[in-house]
């Protein structure tokens, strides 16, 4: 049985892949530091309607240990590109009901411009690089593996 969780947490970086509900408040608390003036959080949520089709369930498959390593790599790369004080990258796997979070990415920087840029880069790059796949289950019972733009 392949690993279903990944967790590395230091004082400055928290990376986790887990089948459990993601805790935005814990992410926010982790990111708070007297050094940072701006925290930007991105929360990805299971949407009920996509192009008019109703989704009843999203399920995420992941190559968990590599996904965790890639997310750590993204955190380091973000910290090289922007003055990031703290970052968290949390991704849920398995079933994610509508309106629950599949991903929580957060960045704390001294100034807001860097925090926005780094958080946006993290989600864009995660969606292109991290080995996680989304399967939609539609209201008509059909399922589909969503393919990203690479």
């Amino acid at each position, binding site marked *: 049985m392949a690993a279903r969780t990944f967790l590395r947490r230091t004082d400055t970086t928290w990376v986790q892949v887990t089948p459990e509900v993601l805790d935005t408040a814990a992410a926010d608390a982790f990111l708070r530091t007297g050094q940072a003036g701006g925290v930007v959080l991105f929360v990805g949520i299971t949407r009920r309607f996509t192009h008019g089709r109703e989704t009843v369930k999203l399920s995420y498959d*992941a190559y968990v240990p590599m996904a965790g390593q890639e997310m750590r790599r993204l955190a380091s790369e973000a910290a090289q590109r922007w003055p990031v004080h703290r970052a968290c990258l949390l991704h849920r796997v398995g079933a994610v009901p509508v309106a629950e979070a*599949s991903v929580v990415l957060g960045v704390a920087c001294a100034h807001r411009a860097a925090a926005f840029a780094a958080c946006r880069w993290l989600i864009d790059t995660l*969606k292109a690089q991290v*080995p*996680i*796949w989304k399967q939609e289950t539609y209201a008509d019972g059909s399922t589909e593996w969503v*393919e990203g733009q690479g």
Partner: protein
Amino acid sequence: MTDPAPRSSPRPAAEPVAVHVLLFSVLRENIGQPALQVDVPHPASVAALLEILEARYPPVASYRSVLRVAVNQAYAEEEAPLTAGDEVALITPVSGG
């Protein structure tokens, strides 16, 4: 002059390289297995492995142009060599987030 005999005899063929191939999402579903054991003839590379898989599994062939490969949990180029026991993952376009 005579060639030394040992050098002119055929060299013993190198052992094929046995690797563990992991499948996810659409490939796992279409091939019907989460993992494959594959022997890749020497000199083994990612490209050589893909050639074998493509011939053996039509779903691999149909995703070949967009497929990325990870060796031991890191993305690898097609020229990358393979070593016995490597963990190789076939990565179709990802859609996390």
